[in-house]
């Protein structure tokens, strides 16, 4: 069973880890680095609860090997808050009640973060398309869309 020593930068901080070839990135984050904000939902590449940014691009971390992330920059939901201040995306979900159970929320926020990084004023349709790989079983998406619109208005 092959193991590899890898180095990943997560939320600006470098980490070394020894990982089995088959270890999934989401398990590296949650179980070895103890960053449990990233959730495991369906585990079958459908739900997007495990969405993180890999070199700035939102991807499903249950469908990437940890070893594929060697040398790369990762951002998880823990990286959004700065100096005790919520990121406008987090504030938007708070203000607009963009969640009920909260399970999909970290993934929703990471996808939104990447959307707003490339499109500062998305239309409602663009928002809905961008989050079409993130499933929420509570809200019907209405408040999630409002939360992202609110975040877009409050981005610096």
């Amino acid at each position, binding site marked *: *069973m*092959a193991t*590899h020593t890898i180095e990943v930068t997560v939320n600006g901080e470098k980490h070394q880890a020894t990982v*089995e*070839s*088959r270890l*999934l990135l989401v398990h590296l984050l949650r179980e070895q680095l103890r960053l449990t904000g990233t959730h495991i939902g369906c*585990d*079958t*590449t*459908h739900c*997007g609860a495990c*969405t993180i940014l*890999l070199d700035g*691009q*939102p*991807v*499903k971390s*249950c*469908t*990437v*090997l940890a*070893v*594929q992330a*060697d040398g790369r920059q990762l951002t998880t939901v823990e990286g959004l808050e700065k100096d005790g201040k919520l990121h406008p995306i987090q504030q938007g979900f708070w203000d607009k009640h963009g969640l009920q159970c909260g399970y999909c929320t970290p993934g929703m926020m990471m*996808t939104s973060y990447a959307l707003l990084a490339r499109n500062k004023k998305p239309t409602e349709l663009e928002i809905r*398309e*961008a989050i*079409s*790989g*993130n499933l929420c079983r509570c809200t019907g998406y209405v408040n999630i869309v409002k939360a992202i619109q609110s975040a877009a208005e409050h981005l610096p």
Partner: protein
Amino acid sequence: MIPAAFDYHAPKSLAEAVGLLSQYGDGAKVLSGGQSLLPLLKLRLGQAAHLVDIGRIPGLEYLKEEGGMLRIGGRTRESALEYSDLIRSRYPILLDTALVIADPLVRNMATVGGNLAHGDPGNDHPATMLVLGAQVVATGPKGERVIPIDKFFLGLFSTALKPDEIVTEIRIPMPAPRSGGAYVKFERKVGDYATAAAAAYVTLGADGTVASAGLALTNLGPTPVRATAAEQQLVGKKPDAGALEAAGKAAAQATSPNADRRGAPDYKKEMGRVLSVRALKKALERAGGH
């Protein structure tokens, strides 16, 4: 879900990758975007003793027109098609296709080469590539070889690629004047495989008749289905409603879908007919014929 154990290799060059594939033969699989392969390994529907990750080999992601061809690097991400002005303006059929593959997050990893090499009749690029007359460039121990797309899909999850070959480029002839293509997919929800989908590509002659036609269908047989009879009966005709309806019927006859949760065979055939007509109409609009 955890895949069965395997060894992972991250070659830095194509030569090194091909060397590893030659060494491990059938025990090795190429890891490109991993969006089909990793779910398969996690569900343990498949196993590989060795994964050869081509993700660290430089020069495999590009979109460019050169020598009369659109050239797509084998590891080009589906999202790169979505954001490319070249694709948007010159190859809208490829944009149609990219936008209905899985979901936006998957498309940030998934690759065009992987979508073809996987040999899944439910994948969306195969039908599109069939109607575009694409060529697949495979690189193996003896260098490059060019496989015409019509010879590429051999069976369910089976392609003309040898175990030690990697898809390094896809070539598509640049569009002729008065030509257009479209891909229309019917899916139960975002991210699903097609219940049925159709790709169409038409070139019109100066007199407004069809000079050439391509029509192919997704997920309606063990391989992507090229509707050859439908194509042939369109050529030389004025593409009016009657001709398109007849082509749709001929296309449906070429399919052999299975029953599954997406529907019964008769239903899927009917969807194949309807979508073929829709794809042809859209392709004709883009060709400037309507």
